[in-house]
């Protein structure tokens, strides 16, 4: 992998001058992902903050071909783009080696775009689908999604007199995508950019569909200072709230293990959307979130261990 210095010298596909908020991690995710390939890319984009803030006609921040169709169909749309590529290449009408990447928020990926994504992955289109997961519908003003963590205060799971924020846990989309048995699945965070870019490199060169779920701070929705965006993500990783792992052709591997695991409280306390959890009577919610995070990590370790044993058994089988 290239060094940070080398990366900083490579041209950005997403140019400056777009209108995303200060501290928004979406453009950071895009830049890190796109640094991972030297091939020309065609970018697909679901409706969302990234889309509306980068292509306000007659301007565009995109230096690559880019397509936005609607909210729930980014994966299907890029299926068509990629099918056109395969068709025209087979007919000898195109000779370039092109990569296809889709960016969608958690709304366009976990929820309204889930069917389209599932279909495209099952069909095995050679594309890298990247979800920038900021845990709510931020473009319309922080409404809850199925990626919103338990307890979060959003405008459709507001903290009221009897309801303390979102009552249920988030959907484990990365595992659901792994269950599609596609070529490559990973979970990443821009706070660990080496890890993220290495994963994106694998995804771009995978022999089939690839999916990367990237946690992305939304300073407005999470109610954190813009300059804290990366720090919060680091806390998410170090508390095991957002484990970094990959599923490469079915082999689960944890790609980063924090030396010292912090309690999830540190991740929660840093954000205004969880403030109410620290008032009297809500202790059980924090406990439940910690239990859920611990369980998730234990399951992930078990999967990684199972993959490791399977690999060793296969190697032993080959040896004997």
């Amino acid at each position: 992998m290239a060094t940070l210095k080398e990366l900083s010298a490579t041209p950005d596909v997403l140019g400056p001058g777009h209108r995303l908020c200060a501290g928004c991690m979406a453009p950071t995710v895009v830049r890190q992902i796109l640094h991972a390939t030297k091939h020309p890319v065609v970018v697909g984009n679901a409706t969302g903050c990234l889309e509306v803030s980068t292509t306000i006609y007659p301007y565009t921040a995109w230096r690559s071909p880019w397509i936005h169709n609607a909210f729930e169909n980014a994966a299907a749309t890029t299926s068509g783009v990629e099918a056109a590529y395969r068709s025209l290449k087979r007919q000898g009408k195109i000779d370039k080696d092109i990569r296809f990447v889709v960016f969608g928020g958690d709304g366009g990926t976990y929820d309204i775009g889930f069917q389209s994504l599932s279909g495209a992955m099952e069909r095995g289109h050679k594309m890298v689908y990247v979800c920038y997961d900021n845990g709510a519908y931020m473009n319309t003003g922080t409404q809850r999604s199925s990626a919103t963590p338990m307890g979060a205060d959003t405008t459709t799971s507001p903290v009221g007199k009897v309801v303390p924020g979102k009552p249920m846990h988030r959907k484990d989309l990365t595992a659901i995508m792994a269950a599609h048995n596609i070529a490559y699945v990973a979970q990443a965070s821009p706070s660990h950019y080496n890890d993220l870019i290495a994963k994106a490199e694998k995804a771009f060169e995978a022999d089939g569909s690839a999916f990367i779920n990237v946690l992305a701070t939304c300073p407005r929705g999470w109610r954190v200072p813009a300059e804290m965006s990366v720090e919060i993500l680091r806390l998410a990783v170090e508390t095991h709230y957002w484990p970094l792992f990959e599923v490469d052709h079915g082999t689960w591997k944890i790609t980063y293990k924090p030396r010292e695991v912090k309690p999830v409280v540190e991740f929660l306390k840093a954000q205004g959307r969880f403030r109410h959890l620290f008032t009297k009577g809500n202790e059980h919610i924090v406990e439940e979130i910690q239990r859920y995070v611990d369980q998730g990590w234990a399951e992930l370790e078990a999967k990684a261990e199972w993959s490791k044993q399977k690999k060793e058994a296969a190697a032993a089988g080959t040896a004997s």
Partner: protein
Amino acid sequence: MAKKVALTGNEAVALAMKQINPDVVAAYPITPQTDIVQYFSSFVADGQVDTEFVTVESEHSAMSATVGASAAGARAMTATSSQGLALMWEVLYIAAGSRLPIVMPMVNRALSAPINIHCDHSDSMGARDSGWIQIYSENAQEAYDNVLQAIRIAEHPDVQLPVMVCYDGFIISHGMETLEVMDDDPVKKFVGAYRPEHALLDVDHPYTMGPLALQDFYFESRRQMADAMEHSPKVILDVAKEYAKLSGREYSLFETYKLDDAEIAIVVLSSAAGTARPVIDDLRKKGIKAGMLKPRVFRPFPAAEMAKALSHVKVVGVLDRADSLAGHGGPLFNEVRSALYELPGKRPVVTGYIFGLGGRDFTPENVDGILADLKQTADTGKYANLVTYVGIRE
């Protein structure tokens, strides 16, 4: 060499698609369109086409993938019916607004509820203002011919709009009839190679497709679509002329039947025109001057030409296989009636008839009843109802 063959409407359309040999087809099966998807799958399986066939998981994705493929620079097609078209709704507008020359066979079927698989025009009529050109076909021959011409119309630089080619579910899609089809080579020459002005896969010339356009630009983009629609009749007629040279079959914006001296006339789309023709012949034998106008192109709506063609008629009965449920007749009725308002002096009396919803049989007796109605209005100047439901238990 053209040859006579016996095919169902869906077979004829699938054959047209095979001869067009699109770069991408993304489609989802739905009754009564399903055969098209199946036939096309077998063309792909047998290597008879260069097409990349995307077996999407829904019609919403069918249209979405078709939009993606078309924007990428491919000639892209899909096909659907009824609920499938309804599910595509959102993306129909995006295809048109993005000015993508997609061609879609649309096998007309009623919309739920109650669920019904048989023919009416509720599906395509609901999409009449989506920015798609709509061409209606009476039979398998017309469906075949219209699909081939649609490619040229959609891709014409003065148009650049998607086209749906409609024909009646089961009545035409599954009915076997004799038609004349062309050899592959002349079709290939006629449709030509697709050379888009912009293509996502032209990575050296990147462009942003589907941006956000607000108060300062959105309106102009819609006006440009309206402009393209206004220009399209000329293109439709030019393409028809060229096609006539090739096939010997002539097409226009609409077809008239014994209309020139008609005192009473019906206006009706698609297969019902075939039911009406012999009834008109019978009335003519009895000395009743009956005639018919069968619109081929519903979008753009050829209002001025149609008004001119109907200007001398005393009473016009407009037959809709769809109801607007507006308490004021069907969509064709309202369009025709509005078009005739432009006529100077005494205008024809126009009444509406709603028939055949959900595949209800439409018989020569029904046509006869309607024409008797019109004759009475012509003689008395009076009519019982502005809009009448035909062939129904009331």
